[in-house]
């Protein structure tokens, strides 16, 4: 289907989910997870201010650079790894087909 990609997401119990993601809805990974009712809080609504949508990037896709806001939030968050990103800052685009992510633990 045009403007649809598939993302693999491993939840906190290690279970793999294949998520069908539209790329023409201006959505991000946090919103996609919420739409599948996966355990992602997204407390701040996507402003890079809570880290409840932290994910580890497992595939070698080229993601957009982190903004200053995202860097600052990851600096304050827990369970951060070198491949950590905030799901709300990863916009769903066609070149992310096959992206593999894992939900980070969350204390919030």
């Amino acid at each position, binding site marked *: 289907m045009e403007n649809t990609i598939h993302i693999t997401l491993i939840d906190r119990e290690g279970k793999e989910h294949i998520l069908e993601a539209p790329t023409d809805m201006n959505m991000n990974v946090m919103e996609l997870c919420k739409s599948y009712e996966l355990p992602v*809080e997204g*407390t*701040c*609504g996507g*402003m890079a*201010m*809570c880290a409840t949508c932290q994910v580890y990037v497992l595939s070698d896709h080229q993601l957009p650079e982190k903004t200053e806001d995202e*860097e*600052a939030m990851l*600096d*304050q*968050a*827990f*369970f*951060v790894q070198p491949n950590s990103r905030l799901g709300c800052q990863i916009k769903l685009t066609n070149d992310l087909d096959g992206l593999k992510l894992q939900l980070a*633990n969350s*204390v*919030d």
Partner: protein
Amino acid sequence: MIETDIIIIGAGPCGLFTVFEAGLLKLRCHLIDALPQVGGQLTEIYPKKPIYDIPGFPEVLAGDLIHNLMEQAAPFKPGFTLGERCESFQVDEDGKFIVTTNKGTLHKAPVIAIAGGLGCFEPRKPPIANIADFEDKGIEYIVRDPNIYKDKRVVISGGGDSALDWAHYLANGVAKEVTLIHRSKSFRGHPDSVQKAMDMATAGKIKLFTDAEVVGVNGTDRLSTLTIKHLTEGESTMETDHWLPLFGLSPKLGPLANWGLNIDKNSIEVNTFDYSTNIPGIYAIGDINTYPGKLKLILCGFHEATLMVQSAFKRIYPDKNYVLKYTTVNGVTGF
């Protein structure tokens, strides 16, 4: 004792608009908020961000929206208790609620409207299993009284302004020894704060560990040592009297979680007929409530506030009839 018709918990957009809608029905309101200023998230987190989905405003800055809501509520002379967190409530002999804050301020009203948004902002606690054992026994998430660190060994974690500023302050003749531990190499505080702290590290007044993280806390009655994990060199142990993990704030439902309200995933369940909770006389509106089809939008919160005050009116004046009046026809008559 502060007495009013509606105690509004949370002075964000939804709470402020409640004052206006209640005022049209001649009901008085008093707002309580844990933050020291009104506006909730809008002033605390994103005052300079534009909002595009307030009906009639193609674009409005969050801070300006709060300013406008304050102006709109002003004729109805709301009361404010700011910088205090609601802890508990009880019901007095005439059926009215008495709400007590963490500073002991008492508020009395026949109706409570919870417009608490995301909840109260509380310190983010590091995920260390036994950390609670040492809270206020060597581990403090907020510096309340800098004097307790006099001549003590203090370890501070975090890379933002509060970590940098306290490291700088305590290293200036207060603490005996200050260590600053940060997970990466770069600090994200205000450039001036970063520079000051770095200068003191160079001068040997602050011990600096970057690419390091506290992963364990140990002691008998009080905190005595920390386990520090270094990115490359493995783990080490450090003796200390205090540890200040300063990782910013995150919103929590807080004491409201223990009020006996029906809670679903950190939100308060309400009946969409009038946004009443399971406790008669207590309502919940805005981002803090949940119901089938809930959308966390300011405009939905405004709608909820408007319907809620109608029900509050009937509860306060069960024998009075009320007919909806239009502001265009009648204008706005304040108190």
